[in-house]
């Protein structure tokens, strides 16, 4: 360990300030969620779990939560099922225009979601897809697929060298190689891609906002509408629950791969 020099201390303080700045709103949610007040105020005048109780009785939000979870799971499974073969093609097969295709398929990552949402709405409106489960899944896939593809492609590219070749020379047919060698070694990437897909879908406000209908509600949109009309700390307790769920998922991914490795450099 070095002795603490002035620049090091200054650097530490800067990092601490940045962290506080980034995390303060998230951390504030927790005390506010235990507020006894009827509206959001800081500091709360008293403490109570009453808003958690209220949250549990808010049937519309609960339904939206359930919808969001189901939607997230469906989108996750489909993302993996589509992105895995796509990644294998794009990473393993040599064909003209491969690099361009890869860039195109991962491009929506760079589009503002308002643009994407509008585009999807325009396509969906005439086809009766607005407000439908099918439309919602389709719209979310446009968001999650690029992430899943990128993570799985990275996973494929960073497989240990020649292990698949070795399996082949030992007599394994291509599908056996995939099942016995490639897939097990891809497990961390699959977990990471799945968790990311779920979070992206579960979190999505803007695009969902364009597509939800009266019969299909998802949590972020319902929360958004709730905040528009009410100012009580119920949203804080809902947020607190969401933060904990997200944290849990992130921990799972971190355990499985290390988040940085999973998301890291694709090109």
């Amino acid at each position: 360990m070095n002795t603490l020099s002035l620049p090091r201390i200054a650097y530490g303080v800067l990092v601490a300030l940045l962290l506080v700045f980034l995390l303060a709103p998230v951390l504030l949610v927790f005390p506010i969620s235990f507020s006894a007040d009827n509206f959001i105020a800081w500091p709360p005048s008293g403490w109570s779990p009453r808003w958690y109780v209220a949250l549990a009785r808010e049937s519309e939000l609960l339904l939206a939560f359930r919808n969001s979870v189901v939607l997230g799971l469906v989108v996750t499974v489909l993302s993996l099922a589509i992105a895995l073969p796509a990644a294998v093609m794009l990473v393993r097969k040599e064909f003209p225009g491969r690099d361009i295709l890869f860039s195109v398929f991962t491009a929506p990552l760079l589009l503002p979601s308002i643009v994407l949402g509008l585009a999807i709405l325009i396509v969906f409106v005439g086809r009766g897809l607005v407000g439908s489960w099918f439309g919602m899944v389709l719209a979310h896939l446009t968001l999650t697929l690029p992430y899943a593809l990128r993570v799985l492609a990275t996973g494929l590219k960073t497989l240990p060298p020649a292990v698949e070749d070795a399996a082949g020379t030992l007599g394994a047919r291509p599908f056996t190689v995939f099942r016995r060698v490639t897939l097990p070694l891809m497990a961390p990437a699959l977990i990471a891609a799945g968790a990311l897909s779920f979070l992206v879908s579960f979190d999505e406000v803007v695009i969902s906002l364009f597509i939800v209908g009266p019969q299909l509600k998802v949590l972020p949109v319902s929360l958004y509408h709730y905040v528009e009309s009410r100012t009580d700390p119920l949203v804080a307790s809902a947020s607190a629950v969401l933060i904990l769920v997200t944290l849990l998922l992130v921990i799972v991914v971190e355990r499985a791969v290390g988040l940085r490795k999973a998301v890291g450099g694709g090109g």
Partner: protein
Amino acid sequence: MAIARAPHAAGEAPRDAAPAAGLNSVHLTLEALEKRYGNLPPSVSALSLQLRQGELLGLLGPSGCGKTTTLRMISGLVPVTAGRILVAGRDVTALPPYRRDMGVVFQAYALFPHMTVAENVAFGLEMRKVSRTEAKERVMRALGMVRLEALADRKPRELSGGQQQRVALARALVIEPSILLLDEPLSNLDAKLRDEMRNEIRDIQQRLGITAVFVTHDQVEAMAICDRIGVMRAGRLEQIATPLEMYERPTTPFVADFVGRMNHLRGTRLEGGGVRVGEAVLATAGTSPAGEALLLMVRPHRIQMTPAATAQPEAAGRNVQPGTVRRVTFVGDALHYEVAMGAETMLVESSTVSGPQSFAVGDAVFLAWSPDDTLTFPAGTEA
């Protein structure tokens, strides 16, 4: 999968018998193989050779000369861009790796990280539908061969580099392939284990009559166990010959330098047949047109060194030149002398066992060697 076995499975193999067609059947044939990656110049080109059943070929050559690429073409891991590969007369050029029955030890080991050592070794047997009990026994025997029985339940990442390499070896040997391709399989072992393993490989290869290609950077290793050696250079097979022939009669300066040390002398052919090198005129075995610029090569251990104080050694057609010892290096079983001979510096190697005397720096000496030991090449053909 039927595996053809050599008739001489008893143990003795035709080590220095030249590859005679008919005596032993040709097993592996490479016909004008070529591999190009994209539009780059070919990584391997015009590579032709024939291996007899049970023959062990050593492939030598500098880094990047195409050794790994050659093995990958033979095993079917990369498609050839031209040429044919025949196994026992059958064209396998288009067969995928899993249908070629070749054991491969990869330069980077390529162990399965998610399987234990035993599972790694068992994988090929499992693919061949060998029964569990038999597989278990064969796996332990293979691990015994590479002295790793104790580590059967470890994961590859819990092994040292050398241990991983031996697992890779066991994994390729356990399936008793008809053809074995080894890409520097001993590069990460210490000297003692290396010798042990290379003899083990040789034993198994001979016992089972496996036809094998052994890539190595170590020419001593290649000389020690191979029936024949091929030296590659920039994607081409420069020479293929028995170790002795390769050592004594290299066909190019490149090969001569690659298999053992060489003294280089530059000179010009004279009218009478001798070669002028500086002040001296040397005799050589071959002839060439007068006036041609030549590169002469002499192996350091072919040069006899005697004290100048005693009488000049018996000439009898030998090349005899005066010199002065400049440097002495002791290298265990031999002494290396650097001797100034005219404007040239000659390396002389003498065995510490048989050498009757040793010399000190500054000693005046005579160097003597036979014209037969003087290889001549046209100047400009060297690397």
